[in-house]
């Protein structure tokens, strides 16, 4: 007992003054961001579309809120198409894995789902997103998205994008057919007034396959679009 008291109390007192300043631990930096990747008017559908990603966190771990919404231009309210809350972890130099869940589809008719996403920068500068979902009814489906920035000038950027949707089952309320359900190609030309603010024009083409054709009631769809990309 006396020994312990000696060590706990006296040793620090005896060595005080010879010790250096006690180093204070470094506080890791946490930051946040909101990326409005797409806020665009689609000419054919007369719709306003929104795609938004936001995060809070540090270098290795982040919390993500990701959503898509749609609004008829002249009337109606914003309708969520999907909203997911995900926990992201850096797993390699260029890729993050995000795990979480959310809701997709129309209110009360849609699906609650689990989500796992692999997001990052693939070789040759392709921004890629590979997502797997499992709905509360046990329907698995997935999406691959890739985009590329081609710099015409320092501020004028041409961005092609490809999106492929595939599902193991037909999910009627989400208008997803079994198999390869949908392939979308689009191209956007943006002008970065500032890095954070870039208006753009573009063209999008989509083709539905299998059951999706029936569910959506069309085989092909193409539209001009005009929009604004922002982040802060």
């Amino acid at each position: 007992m006396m020994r312990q008291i000696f060590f706990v109390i006296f040793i620090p007192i005896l060595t005080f003054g010879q010790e250096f300043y006690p180093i204070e631990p470094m506080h890791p930096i946490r930051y946040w961001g909101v990326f409005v990747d797409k806020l665009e008017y689609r000419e054919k559908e007369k719709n306003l579309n929104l795609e938004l990603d936001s995060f809070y966190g540090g270098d290795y771990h982040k919390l993500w809120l990701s959503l898509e919404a749609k609004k008829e231009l002249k009337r109606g309210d914003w309708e969520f198409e999907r909203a997911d809350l995900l926990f992201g972890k850096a797993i390699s130099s260029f890729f993050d894995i995000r795990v979480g869940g959310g809701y997709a589809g129309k209110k009360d008719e849609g699906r609650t789902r689990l989500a796992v996403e692999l997001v990052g920068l693939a070789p040759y500068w392709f921004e890629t997103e590979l997502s797997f979902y499992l709905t509360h009814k046990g329907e698995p489906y997935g999406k691959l998205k890739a985009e590329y920035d081609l710099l015409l000038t320092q501020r004028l950027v041409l961005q092609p994008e490809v999106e492929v949707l595939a599902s193991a089952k037909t999910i009627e309320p989400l208008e997803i057919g079994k198999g390869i359900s949908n392939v979308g190609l689009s191209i956007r030309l943006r002008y970065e007034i500032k890095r954070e603010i870039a208006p753009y024009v573009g063209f999008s083409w989509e083709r539905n396959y299998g059951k999706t054709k029936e569910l959506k009631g069309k085989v092909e769809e193409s539209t001009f679009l005009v929009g604004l990309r922002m982040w802060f």
Partner: protein
Amino acid sequence: MSWHRRDFLKLMLLSGIAYSVPSFSAFRRLEVADAREKDELLEYTLVVRKEPVEVGQRRGVGTLINSLLPSPLLKFKEGKEVVIHVINEMDEPTSIHWHGLLVPNEMDGVPGVVFPGIPPKSRFTYRFPVVQYGTYWYHSHSLMQEQLGMYGPLILEPKEEDVIKADRDYVIMLSDWTDEDPHRILSNLKKHPGYYNFQKRTLGDFLREAREKGFYPTLKERLMWAQMRMDSRDIADVTGYTYTYLMNGQTTEENPTFLFKPGEKVRLRFINASAATYFNVRIPGLKMTVVQADGQNVYPVDVDEFRIAIAETYDVIVEPKEEKAYAIYAEAMDRSGFVMGTLAPRKGMKAVPPPKREVPELTMEDMGHHGHMGHGHNHHHEGYKMMLDVSKNPFGVDADMVVSNPMPKLDDPGVGLRNQKHKVLTYADLVSAEEYPIGKPERTIEIHLVGNMERFIWRMYSYDGKKLSSRFEDVIPLRYGETVRFVFINHTMMHHPIHLHGMWMYLDNGGDTLNPRKHTIDVKPAEVVEVIVKADAYGNWALHCHILYHMDAGMFRIVKVG
């Protein structure tokens, strides 16, 4: 008729009358601080405040000492003792670090490492003996005040007569000013690492190059970079897009002027006080004789140009013979901007800037790829054999590239300065004017400089043969009195100015006892640089990258000598 008054105010602003009203905007010019001298004591008072700073059309807020940008010049004398009272009038903490000065550990000024910092609305007194001479500088080591104007020159006069003889003696402090909040800059870089780079390669560049060099070679080269997800134009994180480069606080338009009479010897003490900018310095038409590096006298070497890393100092002697205005031209390393002053025989003259050079481009050699792509000086060198096995990226997410065969490149002028027709200073040219028999190092510590550009992660991994760590809290222990070889290995495509507090780094450039000693060492992309450190000062000493944004992102360690 209110618009009349407004126009008048605008006119006042534009004509620069506003500069003479201290409550309105800070003074931007170099001034010498008043010292109270009694016996062996030199006493200064420095007041730190937040103040509006106007540069060109832009208004920002500076963290300034005695309402000056840069902070006032302090003249110390070797052999004397200095007492500096720092009064913090701000609502945030502050600190002052004496860059390159050998001071007792608790006077080194790094908050959280050697003292608690200077809290808001309080004062702190620094007191230490001056045990050296030469050109140095001082700056804040708190928050990001170093970007906001809290930096000033130090001249330490030698006890004995100065061996460097000159008729005139000028300080030229280079810096990068922005009205943006530096925290915002860091956040921008975290979210968009190319935020400030407006010199990227475009489709137009591709077409032009394809015409000159052929379509397939150009495509092949582009694909190599794209495959690695790297940008060959990524030279500086923060650029002239937001920075206005300053010389003694003044812009090129304000024409900082340094007078001479033809035939005179003029000593120019260059100090790079930037937060994130390396400069290439030239005086077209004049040879510069480098006589001092990092405050240490070196064997004189004649050059036409030198690159000054962040936090380095170089003293040069020039002897202008003609009765004309010479340009003191300092271009940012990425050439996104410059600042120019005039070396003139009389006031009112302004030099003509030299033509702008091409945007510099990194090569595969800068990425650590050697072989048939490489051309030049590295062929005959053996690469450094690392103690650390890097075959399976030991840095994980922190690294977007690992250099397996780092090369010594001391004789390489570096990106953008190779193949110049004139002489560019390299570290291979530096020979100490004094002999330092510090002895053979007993052991080796590798410092791996690691980064991930996409995530803007920057780390400093230490490896002593046993333990690999990049944690700030894991100190690098040195035994008092031992001599250690530090090997800096740069696994990134950016330069890193590595600064060790409290002790000299003897740059091993083959000079043995005439190796130059430095406080800041520039480590080029994919380069290995070896230095020898004599652990002759007790305490916690910071070892960090002097790019403010790399330091704040985590390229910061502590060497503990005990």
